[in-house]
């Protein structure tokens, strides 16, 4: 029973880490390898806010906002000129972003580990089903659910999501309808960057805040995105929970096979449903 709660929290955490990537990947068709770096930046920014203001919540709010501004700049300056080219050039760019962001973090905060703690409100552990579950984990479940609901409404239901999806296929045609595609794209990238940082801020109290922290999560995030189906927020939530549960069970019974299981799940999905568990395919003729 407690495994389920923990699995749920692991899944939601994964979702929060991957949400920004899903968004940018699904909407702009950009594989944002710098997602991990933005996530790391979010953690450092949150740490900084916490050490200045003493409030976890200040960090949780400020880090995404600052990262979103940085994301907007990245999009305006670098990404915008290459949309018309083959998608792979965006890869090169985002690789460049990784190096630049990492360097910036190194210059600003140095190499030492930084730390953050859960807010007062969620500091202790709660007895549940005979286990003590850290209440911060419960916070993550709730927070993840809220973020996913918000994203779901933004993307699948609203006209905003419609524009983004249309523009990912044929931006020119969207322009003829009088819609400012560039602005929308900047918005999406910036929002995705903010989400990445949000993930970092939420993860801060759980993981060491260090330079390499972004490098590791990117693969996890990819797995969520793939299993969920491109840019499909509902799919991403489902996938994250599925992985969270799988991992929780894995840790209970065979910890050394956990990574393995995750990949088997991924490869299995891709073989059975190459487009991901939650997407549909079009026709070609």
């Amino acid at each position, binding site marked *: 029973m407690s495994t389920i709660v923990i699995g749920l929290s692991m899944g939601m955490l994964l979702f929060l880490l991957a949400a920004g990537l899903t968004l940018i990947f699904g909407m702009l068709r950009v594989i944002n390898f710098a997602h991990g770096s933005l996530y790391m930046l979010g953690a450092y920014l949150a740490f900084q806010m916490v050490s200045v203001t003493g409030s976890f919540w200040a960090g949780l709010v400020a880090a995404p906002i600052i990262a979103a501004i940085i994301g907007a700049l990245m999009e305006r300056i670098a990404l915008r000129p290459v949309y018309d080219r083959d998608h792979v050039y965006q890869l090169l760019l985002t690789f460049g972003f990784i190096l630049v962001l990492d360097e910036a973090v190194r210059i600003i905060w140095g190499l030492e580990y930084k730390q953050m703690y859960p807010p007062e409100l969620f500091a202790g552990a709660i007895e549940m089903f005979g286990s003590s579950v850290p209440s911060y984990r419960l916070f993550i479940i709730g927070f993840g659910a809220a973020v996913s609901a918000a994203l779901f409404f933004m993307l699948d239901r609203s*006209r905003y999501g*419609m*524009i983004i*999806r*249309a523009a*990912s*296929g*044929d931006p*020119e*045609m*969207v*322009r*003829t*309808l*009088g*819609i*400012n*595609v560039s602005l929308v794209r900047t918005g999406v990238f910036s929002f995705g960057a903010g989400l990445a940082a949000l993930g970092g801020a939420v993860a801060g109290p759980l993981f060491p805040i260090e330079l390499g922290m972004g490098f590791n999560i990117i693969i996890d995030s990819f797995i969520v995105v793939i299993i969920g189906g491109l840019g499909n927020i509902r799919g991403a939530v489902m996938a994250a929970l599925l992985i969270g549960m799988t991992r929780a069970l894995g840790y209970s019974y065979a910890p050394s096979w956990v990574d393995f299981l995750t990949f088997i799940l991924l490869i299995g999905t891709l073989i059975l449903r190459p487009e991901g568990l939650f997407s*549909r395919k*079009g*026709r070609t003729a």
Partner: protein
Amino acid sequence: MSLLEMQNCDVFYGKAQALHDVSISVEEGEIVSLIGRNGAGKSTLLKAIMGLNPIASGKRMYDGRDATRLSTEMLGRSGIAYVPEDRRIFATLNVDENLRIATVMGREGAWNLERVYDLFPRLKERMTSRGDTLSGGEQQMLAVGRGLLTNPELLLLDEPTEGLAPLVVEDLIKAMALINAEGVAILLVEQNLKVPLKLAKRQYLIDNGHIRWSGKTEDLLAEREKIEGLISL
């Protein structure tokens, strides 16, 4: 005053010139058609009007103002709608969304979702299908419907009847007449000459990137022999 005026426009693809010193005008509320053989430059001109092809030299006047420098989205917002020859349906959006996206900018006018569905009942049946699963003709209907839903002052139609069944073509001709009667100007490109001859009061003949002839439809029919020699219609 003309609604749209293109003055002495040159358009290039790379180094190749596709339009030479082209001037055309569309008056408010009229139907004008542009005819010419394959590769004459018709689509190129429509795209240039819509800001999708840069105008190397020349001027675009819209609503009495110089619109040469306006971007595609500004032109769209000021009331020009474009129905491209290759339809360009949004593949990942369903039929309903493909239509609704055209209403995002919220221009007031006579067209709304219901009217489009009345015009093309087939679209209503396929409302929840993704754009890229539609048949060719369904996509064509959708492209026209999407153009209408922006409630334009000027509608650029590039071969709108291509791939449509005869019955639907009839409906579309009626609809165009109706749209026009409601005050929308139309610039029509067609291969199927029946349609422009029936609808348009004025014609432009384009060949090899040059406007070779322009005038009333009656004159076109009367001077047919001469013009045929000119551009081998």
